[in-house]
């Protein structure tokens, strides 16, 4: 069954458990043929930087870096909240593959045809 699915993620190293589970769920959605988006906002935007997730590994889960790479390889989208990104003075040149900096309108467009959204 085709359709869209959004995972909104607001955590990074401040809550690696949430960050990991968010990508586990996102991988389940993309594996189920959903057009899947992970929206990174507030602290979550730090995950958009190359190398940041390399040392996040929660017991019982695959390493976060691997989860994220698999998600992108499977066709998943990662949107990065622009003001949250700028506020933390992150580097646009160090964005991970598959990540795009966006503002709210792009998220609204994705959700506007009734996509479900789960937040971590």
């Amino acid at each position, binding site marked *: 069954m085709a359709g869209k699915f959004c995972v909104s993620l607001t955590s990074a190293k401040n809550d690696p458990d949430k960050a990991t589970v968010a990508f586990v769920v996102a991988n389940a959605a993309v594996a189920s043929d959903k057009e899947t988006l992970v929206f990174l906002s507030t602290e979550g935007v730090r995950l958009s930087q190359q190398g940041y997730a390399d040392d996040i590994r929660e017991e019982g889960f695959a390493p976060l870096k691997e989860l994220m790479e698999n998600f992108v390889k499977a066709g998943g989208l990662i*949107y990065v*909240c*622009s*003001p949250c*990104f*700028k506020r933390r003075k992150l580097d*646009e040149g160090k964005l991970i593959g598959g990540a*795009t*900096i*966006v*503002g*709210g*309108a*792009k998220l*609204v*467009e994705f959700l*506007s045809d009734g996509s479900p959204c789960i937040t971590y």
Partner: protein
Amino acid sequence: MERKALSDEMERTLKLLADLQALHGRLCQRCESELCHHEALFSLSMGFKNAPLCCSCLAAEFEREPVQMRDELWSFVLHRPCHRAGWAWANRDEGYDPAVLPGCLWPYPRKASERPRAPKTLDTAAESCESETWDAGDMACGDLVLELRLRLRGMKPRQVLRITATDPGAREDIPAWCRLTGHALLSAKHPLYWIERKED
């Protein structure tokens, strides 16, 4: 001999352009949808000068899918200089950028009521002297589109707003916002964007 061939080609082109202009505003003889210039050209190509049909009805006449019919006729047009001239005229007259496929037939042939308004080109927008400018600086996300909404509301329909928006999110956000709201994005070359205000 060469000169005569050239002269004949010019004559054919002039005649075709005159025929095209004569079909301006005509309705499809079958479904009564108003023909665009490109459909009029297709009808001329198929010998339907006196009883022109829209692309979908031409397709039905020849038992083809509309998209297949369009592609076959477009290929026919591309291979004939006088028809290519007619196509270029149709693009110009309907305001389509010659570098893109016209929205009346792409991504699929549409009836008049479903056609997008022919987009203004930047040249015509600039010529109209109706454009306004706004330097949004690094404004982003909700602030950017909310201010954009207010500014466009204060303008007249079809006026053009030229925006400078340096926020990296604007690359995705401004086109998405235009798709959501129905304003026409005429050009997006980050950080410059041209938006034509929609009708009320």
